[in-house]
C-alpha cells in the first residue's frame, strides 16, 4: 500500500479537459516537495498517456501511487486496443485522426516519450478490449 493513492476518471468526450489529471498530480508532487526532475518526468509521461486515452480510447482511468522512492502510474482504458505495440512504440508512428493532428497532437511521439521519461514502462493491450499502461518514475534516476 502506497502512502498516497490518487484516482482520476479521464473523460473521453471533452478534449478541453485533457491534461487535468496529470496537472493535478504535478501540482500535488510540488506541494510534497518531490524532486523537481522526477516531477517533470511524471508530468510529461502522464500527460502523454492521458492525451492518448482521450484521443484514441474515449477516456479511461488513471491511478497514481506516490511513495518517497517512486511514483507509480497506471492508465487503463477500454478503447480499441493497440494491434502492434512494438510499432506504436516507434517514433513518428501514429493513428491519430486529422482533426486531432490539426491541434498539434498525433505526432507519433506519445509512447516513445513516455518510455523516454520513465524508469519503467509496460503496455498491455488487447484489440477490442483495451489498453493498460504502467509507468514508474524513481526520483534521482535518469
Amino acid at each position, binding site marked *: 500500500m502506497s502512502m498516497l493513492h490518487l484516482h482520476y476518471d479521464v473523460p473521453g468526450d471533452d478534449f478541453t479537459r485533457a491534461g487535468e489529471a496529470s496537472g493535478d498530480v504535478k501540482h*500535488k508532487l510540488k506541494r510534497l516537495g518531490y524532486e523537481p526532475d522526477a516531477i517533470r518526468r511524471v*508530468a510529461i509521461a502522464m500527460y502523454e498517456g492521458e492525451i492518448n486515452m482521450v484521443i484514441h480510447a474515449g477516456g479511461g482511468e488513471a491511478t497514481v501511487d506516490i511513495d518517497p522512492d517512486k511514483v507509480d502510474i497506471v492508465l487503463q482504458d477500454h478503447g480499441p486496443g493497440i494491434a502492434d505495440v512494438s510499432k506504436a512504440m516507434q517514433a513518428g508512428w501514429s493513428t491519430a485522426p486529422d482533426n486531432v493532428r490539426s491541434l498539434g497532437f498525433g505526432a507519433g511521439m506519445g509512447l516513445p516519450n513516455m518510455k523516454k521519461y520513465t524508469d519503467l514502462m509496460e503496455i498491455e493491450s488487447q484489440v477490442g478490449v483495451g489498453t493498460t499502461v504502467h509507468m514508474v518514475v524513481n526520483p534521482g534516476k535518469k
Partner: protein
Amino acid sequence: MVEFYHSVTLNEAQCVGCTNCIKRCPTEAIRVRGGKAVIAPERCIDCGECIRICPHHAKRARFTSLERLKDFKYNIALPAPTLYGQFNNLDDIDYVLTGLKEMGFHKVFEVSRAAELVSEATRKLMDAGKLKRPVISSACPAVVRLIRVRFPDLVDNVLPLKSPMETAATMAKREAQEETGLPLEDIGCFFITPCPAKVTDIKAPIGMEKSMVDGALAISDVFPMLSHKMDHLEAIEPIANSGIIGVGWATSGGESAALLNEKYLAADGIENVIRVLEEIEDERIGELDFIELNACAGGCVGGVLCVENPYVAKARIQRLRKYLPVSQNHLQGGPIPSLMEWESGLEFSNVMSLSADLQEAMMMMMQIDEIEQEFPGLDCGACGSPTCRAFAEDVVKGGSRKTDCVFVYRKQLQQVASTLSALESAPCVLPQEDGQEKN
C-alpha cells in the same frame, strides 16, 4: 532564515477583511486572520494583483519618496519607457525627459537605451546557442520570482542578463562620474517605476549582490508634478536617444519582437503567464526559442503604479515609436560586457511545499485530502483561506481550526442544538421546581 523585503504591504486601518485579495493571489500568500489580511513574506512575489483588486485601497506599494533626492549631490532619473504612455497628446519624448530635469534631476538616462543593449546581448547569447531553450525573459521581476517559488524545473531557462534598469543605472552612473568627477556615493540613481515588483527588485535583487539603483519613484507619484513641469517648459532639451526597439519594451511583445526571430511567444497577465509556464514545464511548447512573460496585462503599461489605462498607454507608445530609428544603442563588438550579466543564477526557493521532510509532507497531504471532504467546496473564503483545499492545508499545518469554516460551525451548532432538545425530553431525576420529588 532569509530576510524578505516587499514593496507590497497592507494598510491595516483600511483593510475590512474581505476575501478579494486572498482569492486573487497567484501564490496563495494571503490569508485573512483576525479580520485583517496577512501576507506570507516568503511566498509574496510583489506582482501587485492584490493592490489592483482591493476595493478598499488597503494594499499599497512602498516606493521611494522624492525627498530622497536630497541625500545625493547629483541625481539621475531613469524613466521606464512606460512613462511616455501616460501623457495625452505627446509627440516628442524630450518633453517628458526635459520635464524630469525641471523636477530637479541633474541627468536623465532612458531605460530604453539600455533595453536596446539587452536586446542585442540576448540575440548574441541565443545565436551562440549556449542557453537552455526555450529562453524565458528575466525582465519582469514578478515573473522571475514566480518561477523561483513555483517552477523549480524552469529556473535554468531564465535569461541570465540583468534588466535594462540595472544596465541603465550602471551606464548612467559611470557617465555621471566622468562628467562631474564626483565619487560614486554622491550620485543618486532613481528608477521611475510602473510597478512594485521593480521596487523589490532594487531592494532585494536576483542575480546580483546589490542593485546600482538607489530608489524607485512611482509613476503615479511623479505624474502630477511632472505633467505640471511639462506644461511650463521654456525650451526642450534633446535628450532622447533610443529607438523603436527600446521604447517597445513598455508593452507585451516588445522585448521578443526585438530579437528578430519569429519563434517566440509573448504572454501577459499573471494567469496567462502561469498557464504558459505550466506548458513549458510539461514540454508542450517545444518549437519556440524565446518566451516573453509579463505579470501585468498589456506588459509594463499595465503596472499598478501607472495612471493611464494600459491599452490607451500602449496606443500612445505605438504612435510615439512610429518615427524613431529602429535602434540607437549598440554593443561595441566583442563579448557581452560582464556588467550586463547575472553574477549568480536563479535558485529554486521551496516555499510552497508542505514540509521539508517528504514522509511528513505525504502524511500531511493524506490528512488534507481527508479533511477537505468535510468542507463544502464552495471556496467562499469566509474562513480566511482562498479555497477549501488551502483551508484544509491551513488546518493541517496548524494555522486554522475546522470550525473556522462557517459550514462546519453550523453543523456543530445543529448537533449541539439537537443534543440539547433530546436532553429536554429525557426523564429527570432531579427535584422539581416546587420541591416535590418525582415519583
